[in-house]
């Protein structure tokens, strides 16, 4: 029974941290006329509730959503309402998924499961964006997590349904769609395409189509309306990237202004091809050898490929990569903690704009301490712990002196952390030079991008060198 008390305590800690962060400023606070994401969400509430008018809105203050007149509405009570909705959505969807996921982990002790839940719930990026900047990412990420849970536990239909809900809530979840597709396809193949596999395939197709139809039904009335929705969802007209984001194109742009040089359709093709080339190996492997572990790692590498190479990526999209990395926290604690720290750091310019410096620093430190004490990450940097054993064995066939891989990685970690701390200090204390006003943001993005490229290579190595040999070793021992 003690396990449930401790899990409740962990959930309460997570909720407390979330609410205290929400006491801070939000995106666009007091900055007319554009305001920010907070105003965007309020505006969407205004639209959806007014056309047509829903009756229950009268119980809440109607001033908050009065059509047209409530633009830019800011008050203490309204802020409380908005923050409460985020907390409730989180409590209903995301947090139960995390708790259930940690309880279903195999081969680790109860204490480690609870520690795992604590670390995932303390991940700073999601807290700061949802409760500080203000968004509802926990809903889509929660649904995606339910999807992962369902599929890992062989409830394929429910898992797919949950994932379809996630996509229809936020189209960004399409980053995760390929691994889902490949894993399920792989499962169908494994069961034999002539028998059970085919049945499963048909069932899955029906569920997906049905859920999409249900969500989109009101908008199917006219072709023009459907196209309009699609245009809003996938704004290809807005260019390769906007603002500063830690992906390849933005970093490339520092040296060579490709955004201006190349025509729009070439940019599209370039990004399309590079994205798919980088994620193809992992996906093919997943179809051929579907496994739960492979599925999770493929989620990471696919989302990371999309983030690095895709079109119109926002810095907040890193959260789509962070969620799968949280899921593999128990398997490679050292690298996951490192990645999650970098992901929070990559959003630094955004967080500073929202005046969230103090919560960012505090939550990052709390997360770091939680991971260090729960997993003793600094003791888990050997090759085997990093899951690089098979890779380094293969390399040693050609280069017998390749024995210092874990040492290299440790040094890289140190360098990375020192750079991040230095850059944070510089951004906060110094003013950028006159000629280069965006110097610090660009530097942050560039450094993060380098880190992410390293992680892309690392995760792909793990996937590709994953254990046929590992399984053989287990059979032998």
């Amino acid at each position, binding site marked *: 029974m003690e396990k449930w*008390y401790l899990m409740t305590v962990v959930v309460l800690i997570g*909720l*407390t*941290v979330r609410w*205290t962060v929400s*006491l801070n400023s939000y995106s666009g606070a007091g900055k007319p006329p554009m305001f920010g994401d907070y105003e965007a969400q309020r505006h969407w509430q205004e639209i959806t509730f007014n056309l047509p008018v829903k009756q229950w809105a009268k119980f809440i203050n109607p001033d908050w959503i009065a059509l047209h007149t409530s633009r830019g509405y800011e008050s203490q009570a309204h802020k409380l309402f908005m923050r409460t909705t985020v907390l409730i959505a989180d409590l209903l969807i995301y947090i139960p998924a995390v708790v259930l996921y940690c309880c279903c982990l195999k081969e680790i002790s109860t204490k480690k499961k609870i520690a795992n839940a604590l670390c995932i719930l303390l991940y700073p990026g999601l807290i700061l964006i949802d409760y500080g900047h203000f968004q509802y990412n926990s809903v889509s990420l929660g649904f995606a997590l339910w999807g992962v849970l369902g599929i890992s536990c062989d409830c394929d239909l429910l898992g797919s349904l949950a994932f379809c809900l996630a996509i229809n809530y936020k189209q960004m979840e399409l980053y995760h769609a390929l691994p889902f597709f490949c894993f399920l396809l792989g499962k169908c193949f494994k069961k034999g395409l002539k028998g059970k596999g085919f049945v499963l395939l048909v069932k899955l197709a029906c569920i997906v189509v049905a859920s999409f139809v249900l969500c989109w039904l009101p908008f199917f009335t006219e072709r023009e309306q459907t196209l309009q929705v699609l245009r809003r969802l996938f704004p290809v007209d807005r260019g390769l990237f906007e603002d500063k984001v830690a992906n390849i194109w933005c970093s490339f742009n520092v040296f060579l202004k490709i955004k201006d040089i190349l025509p729009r359709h070439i940019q599209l093709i370039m990004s399309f091809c590079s994205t798919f080339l980088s994620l193809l190996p992992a996906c093919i492997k997943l179809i051929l050898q579907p496994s739960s572990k492979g599925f999770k790692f493929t989620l990471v590498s696919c989302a990371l490929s999309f983030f690095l190479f895709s079109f119109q990526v926002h810095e907040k999209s890193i959260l789509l990569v962070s969620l799968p990395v949280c899921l593999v926290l128990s398997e490679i604690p050292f690298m996951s903690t490192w990645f999650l720290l970098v992901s929070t750091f990559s959003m630094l310019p955004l967080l500073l704009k929202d005046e969230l410096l103090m919560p960012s620093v505090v939550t990052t430190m709390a997360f770091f301490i939680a991971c260090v004490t729960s997993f003793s990450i*600094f*003791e888990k940097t050997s090759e085997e712990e990093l899951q690089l054993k098979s890779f380094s064995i293969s390399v040693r066939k050609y280069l017998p002196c390749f024995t210092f891989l874990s040492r290299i990685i440790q040094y890289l970690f140190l360098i990375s952390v020192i750079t991040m701390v230095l850059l944070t200090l510089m951004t906060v204390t110094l003013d950028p030079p006159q000629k280069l006003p965006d110097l610090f943001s660009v530097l942050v993005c560039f450094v993060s991008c380098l880190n992410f490229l390293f992680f892309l290579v690392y995760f792909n190595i793990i996937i590709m060198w994953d254990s046929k040999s590992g399984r053989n070793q287990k059979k032998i021992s």
Partner: protein
Amino acid sequence: MAALTIATGTGNWFSALALGVTLLKCLLIPTYHSTDFEVHRNWLAITHSLPISQWYYEATSEWTLDYPPFFAWFEYILSHVAKYFDQEMLNVHNLNYSSSRTLLFQRFSVIFMDVLFVCCKCIDGKKVGKELTEKPKFILSVLLLWNFGLLIVDHIHFQYNGFLFGLMLLSIARLFQKRHMEGAFLFAVLLHFKHIYLYVAPAYGVYLLRSYCFTANKPDGSIRWKSFSFVRVISLGLVVFLVSALSLGPFLALNQLPQVFSRLFPFKRGLCHAYWAPNFWALYNALDKVLSVIGLKLKFLDPNNIPKASMTSGLVQQFQHTVLPSVTPLATLICTLIAILPSIFCLWFKPQGPRGFLRCLTLCALSSFMFGWHVHEKAILLAILPMSLLSVGKAGDASIFLILTTTGHYSLFPLLFTAPELPIKILLMLLFTIYSISSLKTLFRKEKPLFNWMETFYLLGLGPLEVCCEFVFPFTSWKVKYPFIPLLLTSVYCAVGITYAWFKLYVSVLIDSAIGKTKKQ
């Protein structure tokens, strides 16, 4: 990597707990703060800008200096750091000044001083095996470092109790280690920081006299008069005298002692604070009100004779009871003395070492809380924190501690009445309560259950009470007619629990000393 390991204290659970709670306190910086914030800003201004002779006379602001001189010197030292944050806060005439830098400085000063509290709690925190979370040391550290009452009173409401409790715990620890002179010295210093610790001074006095000045006992445990040591008495007296001289000396020289004492002990205030502290007088007031309502209904009382001032209207005045006899400061003093006398006698006649001292100390604090004049509900922390030390020792003490602490912490809820802080106080309270109950239950699982059905029922009743007071009541029509009902209900309900805990603790102390067991020290 080894250096990094040591630096981050891998496996050192104590640092993790301490760092964790410090980070939580940083997150609480933007929360609501009460008038106590302005009080301390004013004191920073007074001590910085005015000469000593003016400190206890200055009255530009209504929040005059009413703590002993050591605290004033503490504010003086702080003010020299404050001037680098925001010079404006040190102007006496800048009433209610609170720029963001002022806020940051004040909050950080509390967090920083709490480091002292942490240091006093220094326990060897090396990594222990599987049973870590069940070890008493771990549980005690969490109960003290993450104490809900201390968190919300110090870091939201705004006060400086953390380091003061650290001093008290340190002095108790010294007494446990038989370093009596240091313990006495620390307590004397503490008294001159905040005179509320007078509540527990009798326990210190009697214990030091009995167990330190009389160096040996007869075989049956009673006093051996011949072993009285004059040297020790005089050295103790000297320590106390020197500390007091250091503190009050300057004011004695300036002939300001009466003024200082009138500031320290303002008896002009009423029997109860605006919100009744959940002590005996809350029950007394409630009974008085009930009787007067019944009396009016049954026409025993003339409506014209009843004084108009309601005791819970939020003003701090002197007023009369209607049915029961009115209470004077002298009456409360006598009641308090009578209440602490049995525990003092136990400490004198059947001393049971430092553990007995600790129980007597808790009883003194609790009895003074029960019967004192103009008690603040925050004073319950004075009983809760020492009781935490006892709770990990014995199952009986654990059960009393849990009742006292849960009701005591709940009674602090009215301190935070703003909407944004509502989730925080509920979440933190749930966090602390669930952890304390589950961990103590696991620690003492081999003994009989900690609560009987009555106690469980009572504690569970706190949930519906909270829902009624904060969620249901504001939407009813009674909110306009009887706005004080939630406060009254909270106060009376908690008073029942605290009285029960006090009673149970007393019974346990008396029984134990009657049996004459010598507890392990």
